[in-house]
């Protein structure tokens, strides 16, 4: 054995600074989730796409020279990039980028205005569901016991009724319009969110920090708002993101079977329905709204998946 110098055997004792083995920096839950989300390219691309889409639906119809309802009867069913020859736009060199529909309305304008209607309906419907779901689920989960029992039975019954059928019935009775669509969707759509929030509340309320808050005399409403909700927030965010495509789908579906927004107003569902009537002759009239609907739903789904992975690394597969 090699001779070792005595000096190297000098005593130093334990090292309190380094003895906590986990040297990885501790970061907060939210920052950690954000870091993971930023690393997820696909989800980021989807997020950017969604933002761009919202912006273009909000802005493009205003800067378009055409109005979504104005009919150019001399140039119906035109294809892509047709110069506008209507007398009202003479000499202005405008172009129907996506062509025109069977009444000569500009498809470009209608597509983005339709997107605005569809997205607004979807966001509003999800928002209403969210509010109902949080209140209902929060109360049910927080109080537990008999209250919870009764409330959840009700949810189970509402859930047992096939939702699209009820929505169809409601749409028949109420006056056609965007608001009606939101109401119809919200009447049955809140159960999922309510269950989710209740589950979160139940699992969280038995945790010690809530007991501690209770012991210190915090009011129930304060506990729900200050402790339960922030913890349930990640789950809610993910599910809201995933609920948007289902709302977009519902709008498109209802419009497609003839229960959409009232006639002159465009929406993606309406455009798809109009397109499907002529699509053997002018297939692009269906492709445009179809691609818009599909891409939007795809983006929201992918973003939702990305958020889920980011918030819950255990689910990262």
């Amino acid at each position, binding site marked *: 054995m090699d001779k070792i110098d005595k000096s190297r055997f000098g005593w130093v004792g334990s090292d309190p600074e380094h003895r906590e083995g986990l040297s990885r920096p501790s970061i907060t839950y939210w920052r950690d989730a954000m870091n993971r989300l930023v690393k997820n390219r696909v989800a980021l691309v989807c997020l950017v796409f969604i933002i761009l889409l919202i912006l273009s639906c909000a802005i493009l119809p205003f800067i378009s020279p055409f109005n979504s309802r104005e009919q150019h009867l001399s140039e119906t069913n035109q294809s892509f990039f047709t110069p506008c020859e209507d007398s009202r736009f003479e000499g202005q060199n405008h172009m129907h980028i996506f062509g025109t529909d069977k009444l000569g309305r500009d498809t470009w304008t209608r597509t983005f205005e339709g997107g605005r209607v569809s997205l607004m309906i979807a966001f509003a419907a999800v928002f209403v569901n969210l509010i109902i779901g949080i209140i209902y689920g929060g109360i049910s989960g927080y109080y537990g016991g008999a209250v919870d029992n009764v409330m959840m039975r009700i949810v*189970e019954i509402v859930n047992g009724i096939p939702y699209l*059928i009820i929505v169809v019935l409601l749409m*028949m009775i109420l006056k056609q319009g965007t608001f009606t669509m939101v109401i119809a969707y919200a009447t049955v759509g809140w159960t999922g969110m309510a269950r989710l929030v209740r589950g979160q509340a139940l699992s969280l309320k038995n945790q010690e920090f809530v007991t501690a808050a209770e012991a210190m005399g915090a009011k129930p409403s304060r506990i729900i708002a200050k402790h339960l909700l922030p913890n349930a927030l990640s789950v809610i965010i993910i599910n809201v993101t995933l609920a948007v495509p289902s709302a977009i789908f519902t709008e498109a579906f209802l419009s497609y*079977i003839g229960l959409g927004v009232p006639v002159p107003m465009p929406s993606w569902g309406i455009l798809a329905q109009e397109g499907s009537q002529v*699509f*053997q002759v002018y297939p692009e009239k269906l492709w445009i709204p*179809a691609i818009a609907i599909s891409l939007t739903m795809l983006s929201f789904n992918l973003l939702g998946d990305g958020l889920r992975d980011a918030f819950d690394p255990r*689910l990262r597969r």
Partner: protein
Amino acid sequence: MAKYILKRVGYAIVTLFVLVTLTFFMMRLLPGDPFTGEKQLPEKTMAALNAKYGLDKPVTTQYIMYLGNCLHGDLGLSLNTNRPVTTIIGEAFTYSFDLGIRAVLMAFVVGVLLGTLAAIKRGRPADTICMLIALIGVSVPSFIVASVLQYFLGLQLYFAMGKTVHLFAVTGWDGFNSKILPVFALAFGSLAQISRLMRTSMLDVLGQDYIKTAKAKGLSQKAIIWKHAIRNAIMPVVTVLGPITASVLTGGFVVESVFAVPGLGRYFVQSIQNRDFTMISGTTIFYGAFLIIANLVVDLAYGLIDPRVKLEEG
């Protein structure tokens, strides 16, 4: 187990009752009464019709009559064709059922297989491809899938082959070649949903300790998947079969319309467009009842395949 069954049946009955009640009162809320449609009926006929359907009696009596009629299977006469709604449903639903059951079976079998494949090949190209397909499936509404299939495979392929053979028929429901496209269009979304669920569930099961035990026994990967994992992983999929049935049924509305399948869905859409209220309410109740019973069957089946349910008390 008996308690579990009783509970499920109880829920089904209450839900049905709520549905019928809801339908009745919603129909009452419709502007005017069912017989003041576009066609002006003579006074006398109106009175006779009102008497026949009890519309001259107070609401509660009407409601009770309506419940009784529903129990007898009398859903009234179609305003458009004047035929009993039940007869129309009976005729049309055969097609819808045929289409729907094929779609559900296809969605279930293919979905489970795709999901399992993706889980086993996790992180490899096969996984990515399966999940890409599934993602498209959940993101593209069925009417778009139907139109795309019809246009490219039904129409363009026919043109491309020199208009000789119809590999896939564009419309109708008679030969086998007319069934492929509608079944696929209807199944695709559910198939995608099932395969996503199956993948997650399979990965979850494969991470369980008992899979390690099975591996420690010396079982091969194949034996572990087929004998231990599939059955347990399939359980969450079985629970969504109820909602899947619902979405296939409602998806049928549009798919039947696109492919001109003479099913109930197409009838339903037509009666919505024609404002045929008795037909709509009758079909609604029929669909609702069908789905509630389907849900019940799924719940009971779940109780059979999961031995743990027997012990659960509530």
